């Protein structure tokens, strides 16, 4: 049935996986690590959970609050990414708008350049932003508008950076969109004055201030005596990004989106970067210690880090232990965007004594999946770039009690009668930091312990399968 695959890859899997996707699904603990195919374009017809290149760029740049975000394309591209994340701003709210050139039939035939130029000049005069990002969509790539040239001419007229984002939707996977976003941001890096930046300063890369998480993380570092020059892109300002090359260290959280930017900054400005995560007690503490270790010239930073870890853990841990007794042995499925977040979630669930039955990501790379295989217990299913049918079938087969994912996974979970925890764009509750771990435990407990899951069809009548 599944010819050409090593036997152990599928031996215990009861369900059928599309032929072209077999190499992207494995089960751990059957012999050594198996290489998982990843980083490739989604299989046509599989209805991948991934978004397009444009959406990848849009979500990464979205939280830059004092910039104009103009989507050059048909209105749908702007409508579906309008206010797409719960990224909060402490000041301007310009990012919450989605501006579009609304390309129509006539523009597709005769070109949309004039329309773009007129829209840009009008919007810049109206909103007086500090920079503008112009996103290319599929249509623009096909009709061949010279977005770069328009940006250059408007930049000259308006006197602010007008940056094209080369995110034509058909050009690759969502990951290519992240790369395009990094390249767009990088045009600003190194253009500001860095004389006022203190010696112990870092950049937070890949935190998007969902539900105010950046503020929580910033506060920890501030208490340690480390100043944060820029957060890219959570609650970001153009002026901060311009001077972020003055920081001494980059801490990259969302590895999928921001590693490219970190590597460029390392190459051109000599700023080293470290991968961290702010989810869960272990990873949050490691992130603080990582920064403290880097600034070893001032030992008081490490002392203060230890003090913060002690105080914060003592404050949240008794309540978490209470939930742990209730949640012990429950099974969870995880499907998130970046693999690094998946690591943290596996560890966080372990802290709650829960098992991970299924874990997957949209944009993980080979190293990520190897690490994931080592981290997970035997019998865990690992998937790359999955689709609704696969996820649903695996959830039923493993009989999971909780699904952790984003907006596209929510209906899958609820239709199957599985508790759901949102760990993506739209979450309204901060899940980062120590307080975030407590919020996570509370939310998981509230969802999983609800008696309603005893009344769903798959529990009342186990024969009701897909």
């Amino acid at each position, binding site marked *: 049935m599944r010819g050409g695959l090593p036997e152990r890859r599928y031996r215990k899997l009861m369900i059928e996986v599309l032929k072209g996707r077999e190499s992207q699904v494995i089960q751990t603990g059957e012999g050594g690590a198996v290489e998982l195919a990843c980083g490739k374009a989604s299989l046509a017809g599989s209805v991948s959970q991934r978004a397009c290149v444009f959406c990848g760029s849009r979500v990464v740049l979205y939280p830059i609050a004092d910039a104009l975000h103009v989507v050059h394309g048909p209105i749908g591209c702007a409508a579906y990414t309008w206010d797409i994340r719960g990224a909060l701003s402490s000041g301007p709210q310009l990012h919450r708008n989605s501006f579009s050139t609304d390309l129509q039939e006539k523009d597709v035939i005769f070109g949309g350049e004039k329309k773009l130029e007129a829209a840009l000049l009008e919007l810049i005069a109206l909103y007086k932003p500090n920079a503008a990002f112009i996103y290319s969509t599929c249509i623009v790539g096909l009709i061949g508008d010279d977005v770069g040239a328009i940006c250059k001419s408007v930049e000259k007229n308006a006197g602010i950076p007008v940056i094209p984002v080369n995110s034509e939707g058909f050009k690759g996977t969502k990951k290519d969109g992240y790369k395009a976003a990094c390249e767009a941001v990088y045009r600003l890096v190194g253009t500001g004055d860095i004389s006022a930046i203190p010696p112990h300063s870092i950049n937070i890369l890949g935190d998007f201030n969902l539900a105010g998480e950046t503020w929580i993380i910033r506060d920890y570092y501030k208490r340690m005596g480390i100043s944060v020059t820029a957060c890219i892109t959570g609650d970001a300002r153009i002026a901060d990004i311009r001077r972020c090359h003055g920081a001494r260290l980059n801490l990259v959280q969302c590895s999928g989106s921001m590693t490219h930017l970190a590597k460029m900054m390392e190459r051109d400005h000599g700023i080293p970067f470290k991968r961290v995560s702010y989810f869960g*007690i*272990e990873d949050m*503490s*490691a992130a603080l*210690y990582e920064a403290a270790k880097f600034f070893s010239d001032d030992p008081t930073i490490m002392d203060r880090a*230890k003090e913060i*870890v*002690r105080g914060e*853990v*003592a404050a949240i*841990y008794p309540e*978490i*232990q209470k939930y742990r007794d209730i949640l012990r042995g429950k099974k969870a499925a995880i499907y998130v965007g970046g693999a690094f977040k998946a690591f943290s979630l596996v560890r966080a669930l*372990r*802290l709650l004594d829960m098992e991970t039955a299924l874990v997957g990501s949209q944009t993980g790379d080979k190293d990520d999946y190897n690490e994931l295989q080592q981290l997970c217990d035997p019998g865990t299913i690992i998937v790359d770039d999955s689709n609704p049918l696969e996820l649903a079938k695996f959830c039923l087969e493993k009989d999971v009690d909780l699904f952790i994912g984003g907006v596209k996974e929510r209906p899958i979970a609820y239709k199957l009668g599985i508790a759901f925890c949102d760990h993506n764009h739209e979450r309204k509750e901060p899940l980062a930091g120590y307080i975030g771990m407590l919020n996570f435990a509370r939310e998981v407990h509230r969802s999983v312990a609800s008696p309603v899951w005893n009344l769903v069809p798959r529990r009342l009548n186990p024969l009701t399968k897909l």
Partner: protein
Amino acid sequence: MKINDNCGACGACKEACPSNAIRPGAIYVIDPDACIECGACEAACPNAAIES
């Protein structure tokens, strides 16, 4: 952090550890790589066997 000879091997520290850094034995041992120095074990230990 370290566990000294006062350890009674009761397992309270292992139960209390949020980073799963404590291994059981005649005397329990803290894995320094996994330890986040939060002090949860110190608070849980009935024998005051844990040194910072």
